[in-house]
């Protein structure tokens, strides 16, 4: 069968539909991995410096019923750290955040193993009380070396957080290099976060 002009014309709809279909397939793939999010809004903080914020208090044994104690942090401590920090903004009242905690705990453990690129996890509890935060952390895992309680949500405003959970990757020197406004998943970690960590170390 030879291809003539007519065949090419009748193939055009198929070609167009295939193009659209491939685009849709890519979008679907992006939706599952979090790379494509039609509801997302651009977060301006990527590739910017960490914004200034007031020091955040952590969990002290006096403020929590079960004596869990995690230090808080300040702008200076965050910017002068000597290894990459994954800052996770979460809340005990946010179901996706709570679901994310076991994975974060696993992640924190993975990066203590020899050979793994250095990474520490810091947390910021958004509009939360120390007692609630402690209860959730004791139940679902405690991945954070530092935990700031942002009880009135003003620090989250400084960071431009639009909804919890959100995570930021901060390199030594206080530069935000990566951000997600969805839950952190293994896939997202492998495809986006890990390459950045390898190139940083």
């Amino acid at each position, binding site marked *: 069968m030879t291809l003539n002009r007519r065949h090419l014309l*009748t193939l055009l709809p198929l070609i167009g*539909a295939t193009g659209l*279909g491939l685009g849709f397939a890519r979008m679907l793939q*992006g939706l599952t991995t979090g790379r494509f999010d*039609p509801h997302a809004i651009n977060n301006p903080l990527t590739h910017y410096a960490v914004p200034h914020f007031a020091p955040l208090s952590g969990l002290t044994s006096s403020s929590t019923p079960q004596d869990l104690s995690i230090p808080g942090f300040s702008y200076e401590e965050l910017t002068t750290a000597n290894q990459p920090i994954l800052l996770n903004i979460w809340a005990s009242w946010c179901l996706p955040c709570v679901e994310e905690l076991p994975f974060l705990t696993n992640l924190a453990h993975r990066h203590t193993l020899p050979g793994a690129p250095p990474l520490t996890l810091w947390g910021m509890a958004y509009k939360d009380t120390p007692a609630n935060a402690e209860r959730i952390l004791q139940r679902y895992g405690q991945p954070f070396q530092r935990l700031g309680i942002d009880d009135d949500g003003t620090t989250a405003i400084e960071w431009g957080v639009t909804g919890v959970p959100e995570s930021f990757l901060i390199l030594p020197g206080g530069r935000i290099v990566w951000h997600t406004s969805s839950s952190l998943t293994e896939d997202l970690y492998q495809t986006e976060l890990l390459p950045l960590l390898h190139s940083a170390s």
Partner: protein
Amino acid sequence: MASSTLFFTHLSIFFSPEVGHFALALACALALLQALLPSLGLWLCRTDPAHGPSSQSPLLQFAKPLTYSHALALLLAWSCLITAALGDDFSLRLIAETSATSKPWPYKIAGLWGNHEGSLLLWVTLLSLWSSLLATVPHQSLHRPTNIPARLQTRLIALLGYISAGFLLFCLTTSNPFLRLWPVPLEGMGMNPLLQDPGLALHPPLLYSGYVGFAVPLAFAISALLEGRADALWAHFMRPWVISAWSLLTLGIALGSWWSYAVLGWGGYWFWDPVENAALIPWLTGTALLHSVIVTEKRSTLLLWCILLAIATFSLSLSGTFLVRSGILNSVHAFANDPARGVFILTLLALFTGGSLLLFAARSHKITSPSFGAFHLFSREGTILVNNMLLCTLCAVILTGTMYPPFMQLLFGRTLSVGKPFFDATTIPLALPLLAIIGIGITLPWRYAPPARTWRRLTPALLITLGNAVPAFWLFPSPLAGLSALFALWVITSSVIDLARRLHALPSGLRSYLRLPRSLYAACCAHIGVGITILGICGMATTQERIIEATAGTHISLAGQDWCLDRLTPQHGPNFEAIEARITVRSAPRSANIITILHPQIRIFPAQNQRTLHVAITHRLFGDLYAVLGSVKNDHNQYSAILRLHYNPLASWIWLGGIIMACGGAISLRPRIPFRIRRKQPV
């Protein structure tokens, strides 16, 4: 109420969710058989189609019974679901998510299709009903030589079976409506109060009937490609199916638009939201298909174009469903998004659309239009062709606007949105020539009309339209609205005058008038509907709106009327608490002539912890009075309310026009069989 709930609880011994689940699985198996057995039969006796009924395989006899039993199995599944809904069986996830004991019973049923699983079940059920309807049409026989050939009918049923089977598999694997929930909640979540509205309860069945109805033309198109043969008769058999699907889709869109006007309370009727566009795009290609099928029926041309449009219409309605369900399009009324479902629908879409288009590319050379290009621009088919192009261009423009943001984000990572300004700037310049040509085309005869005669016929309508130019520009403050209104008037007068001319040529009397082909009345009716809708849209473009903070006794002047906030009072509803404002509209302050009293409310539904604004509307022929109570403030026991008041001229004409269009479709459903075709029948 409790006793009836108990009744349905007892009934669920017979119609239990497990029975429903089984019925669904059974329906899937039956649909597969409905697809496979007749296909096999047709393949076995493919050698000499010329012999017709004599070379029949017994497998073909299975097509109709399988179709009916497939539909019955799905109706059984629905009975089980409705029993569970009326019996408040919250162990079913679907019902726990959408129902509550306090919900009125019609909404307990309507709530079933307010979510993904239920609406998909509705989708497949409607498809099975369409196939059954197709199966009930008596096929060609010695007594009925003009009916659809048995072979074609069987092939169509088999093709619809494939589509049904695909969607039933989807239903069973990723969106089973009969999933149980553990632990069993005592009370359901309740439905979003905004959705508890009769308009929205009926909207999905109508819209889906339209969407799904276009599966029948798709089956016609595929069967033509498979047989490598299509002709005027083929178009003749396809036409009623296109028209009925189109009419239902028209009604569905109109109802959806009315809901967003009357319930959403934003003052508009069309927001160019992706979900709305997803319905409008197949409507436009469906309209083009409707007209080109008529051309094919009358003139045996445009065959390939018809086939392509039939494929496009169904594919576009399917992709609309896909885009909304998968969460790719960012819409205000999105379903709970799930990419896993998206993968399944995309696969089905690739199978059906890709398969049909592949078939189109491979087989279309077999179908030849004998007289392509032989028709003149100054003929009915010429104008229909031009309008077809305009409709498709319009469709392409809306498709581009809808798909641009996700593709920009995918390819370049830029977040942007395309809204009303874009669609206004692109659709209006295309819609106006479309209207102009409708008015010309309807008066033209088939084949050819000399321009001089055309001009003579058009003169009265043209004079009336131009005569109304001054009032139109005076009545509509914006020139664009005035111009569009003139074009709408042109369509209406031209349609009416053309029908009057045809009637005038006949001997007077109802009997002879009824002998005129029904399609003429239908076309006139549908085009008048288009004109009325456009007039309504023009009227809404001149809407007057005021947002004001008012205390009791405040007089507000809007659109030459005096709106007075009389008082704010608390109200108790069956499942909500409300604050109600009483607004009296008079023709002048302190005048005794009360035009209407509006009662907008703020409703608080404690079960959902949700607040809704209940709009108060008085529909009047020449303009709706529309009031929204935004919020109520209490400053030192001085209550003040933020009110949004609209005067919407000609608003109800938009939906009235939609209903008239659908009526036009209904009138032409039983067209007179043209003599030429009757003569061609093999006996």
